[in-house]
C-alpha cells in the first residue's frame, strides 16, 4: 500500500495505491477516481466494529452513515483517489498502535482496513452548543487519512492547550481532554460567540484546521432561499 497526497494546498486529495489482496476503507462518497479493477462495497461496518447501529451512531457523528470498502478485484495493482467535499488539506497519519487517534466529526477521510473505527458520543453538551461533538476513534497500526477545512497544523501539546471544538481535526488519545465553555459562564460563552472548547492536558499530538466549517455554513446559509416548513 502506498499513499500519495496530491496538492497540499486548498484542494488536497489522496491517491491510494493497492496491491492485490489489500483493502482500504473511506467515508462513503469520497472516492472521485479509481482504476476499474476495484470492487466497492458500501457497508455500515469498517471491520469488526458494529452493524447498523454503529452506522447510525456515525451518522450522529457528522459522518456519512456508511463506509465504502475498496477491494482489489484481480491480481493487478489498483488505485483509489479520495477527496473531501470542502476546500482544504488532506493529511496522512501513520498510526503506530501505541495510542488511539480521535477524529472530529467530518474529519475522517479514510483508513486501511486494519484499523478499527468506532464512534464516541459526547453526550448532550454537543446538542446545547449546536456543534457536532462526536468523535471517531481509530485504533491499530496503519495509515489514516484526515481532511480539514483550510490548512492543517500539527501541534505538539506539552502541558495544556485549549482549542475550539470546530477547529479540532484529530488528536492522540494519550492526551487527557475535557470539553467546556470558552468563557467563565454560559452567558459569557454566548456573548463572545465562542462555543465549546476542548482543554487538552498531557503529552501528544493534535491536528487543527485553520477554519471552522460550521462558521462558513452560517455565513452562506442566510444568503440561500429559505427552507419551507
Amino acid at each position: 500500500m502506498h499513499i500519495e497526497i496530491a496538492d497540499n494546498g486548498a484542494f488536497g486529495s489522496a491517491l491510494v495505491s493497492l496491491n492485490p489482496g489489500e483493502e482500504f476503507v473511506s467515508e462513503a462518497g469520497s472516492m472521485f477516481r479509481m482504476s476499474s479493477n476495484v470492487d466497492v462495497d458500501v457497508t455500515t461496518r469498517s471491520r469488526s466494529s458494529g452493524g447498523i447501529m454503529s452506522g447510525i451512531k456515525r451518522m450522529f457523528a457528522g459522518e456519512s452513515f456508511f463506509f465504502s470498502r475498496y477491494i482489489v478485484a484481480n491480481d493487478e495493482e489498483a488505485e483509489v483517489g479520495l477527496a473531501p467535499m470542502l476546500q482544504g488539506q488532506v493529511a496522512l497519519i501513520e498510526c503506530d498502535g501505541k495510542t488511539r487517534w480521535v477524529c472530529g466529526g467530518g474529519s475522517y477521510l479514510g483508513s486501511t482496513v486494519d484499523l478499527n473505527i468506532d464512534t464516541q458520543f459526547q453526550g448532550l453538551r454537543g446538542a446545547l452548543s449546536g456543534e457536532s461533538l462526536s468523535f471517531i476513534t481509530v485504533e491499530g497500526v496503519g495509515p489514516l487519512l484526515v481532511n480539514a477545512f483550510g490548512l492543517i497544523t500539527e501541534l505538539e501539546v506539552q502541558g495544556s492547550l485549549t482549542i475550539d471544538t470546530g477547529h479540532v481535526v484529530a488528536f492522540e488519545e494519550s492526551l487527557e481532554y475535557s470539553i467546556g465553555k470558552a468563557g467563565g459562564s454560559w452567558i459569557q460563552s454566548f456573548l463572545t460567540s465562542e462555543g465549546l472548547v476542548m482543554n487538552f492536558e498531557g503529552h501528544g499530538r493534535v491536528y487543527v484546521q485553520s477554519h471552522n466549517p460550521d462558521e462558513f455554513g452560517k455565513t452562506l446559509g442566510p444568503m440561500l432561499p429559505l427552507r419551507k416548513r
Partner: protein
Amino acid sequence: MDYVIQSQPSYSVLEVTVDPGEQLVTEAGAMAWMTSNMKVETSSRGGIMSGLKRAVLSGESFFQNTYQAEGGSGTIGLAPGQPGDVRAYEMDGGELLLEKGAYLASTPGITTSSDFQGLRGLFNEGMFILRVSGTGTLFFNAYGDIQEIEIDGSYVVDNGHAVAWEPSLEYRLTRAARIRSFLFSDQIIMEFEGRGKLWVQSRNPRSLADWAFPFRGVESDNDGN
C-alpha cells in the same frame, strides 16, 4: 503569444501576453484585469445559432470575447469563476471534449461546438458537452486540483469529477456492478474505456452546494403567502 499560469492549482490565474495582430478568445466574464491597450470585441462567435447552442446546450456563455492588443503587445489576466486549477492544452487538428463550464480561453484557430450526449446526459452534468477542435492552445479550468490520467484500458470517475477527455475515450454512465450496495442512492459513476488522456477535478461544486443547503433559514409564517 506568451502565457503563464500563476498560483496553481488552488487559485490559478491565467496571464496571456499577446503581440499586435494576435487574438485571444475567452469565456465572457473571465477577464480579471488587462493592460489598457487591449481591445475587446464581443460576439456570439460563429453566429447567433452557435452562440445559442453554446449557451443553452452546454452551459457556456452566449457571447465570447475576442481580445487583441493595439500599438504594442498587451497582457490580460483571466480568472475563472471558481477557485481551482487551469490547464493549457496544445491542439494540432485534433479534438478534445470538455465538461460544462470548463472552457476558459483559446487561440482563434480553435472552435467549439455542442455535442449531444443522449439520454446519459440526463444523469450527467448536462445533455451536451463541449467539443473543441482546431489548431492552437486551449485553456480549461476546474473546481479544485486537476489531475491528468493516462488511460489504457478502463478507468472509473465519480460523476461530476470529469473535466476533459480525448475523443479516443468512450464513456458510459453506470451504477457499476462493481459497486455493491443495498442503497438506492449509491454513486453514479462514469466508466471510461479506450486509450487516451482524461483530466479530473478533485472537488465537485454540486456537493458544496448540497453541503451549504441545510444551513439556510426556515421560512416563518409571516413570510410570503
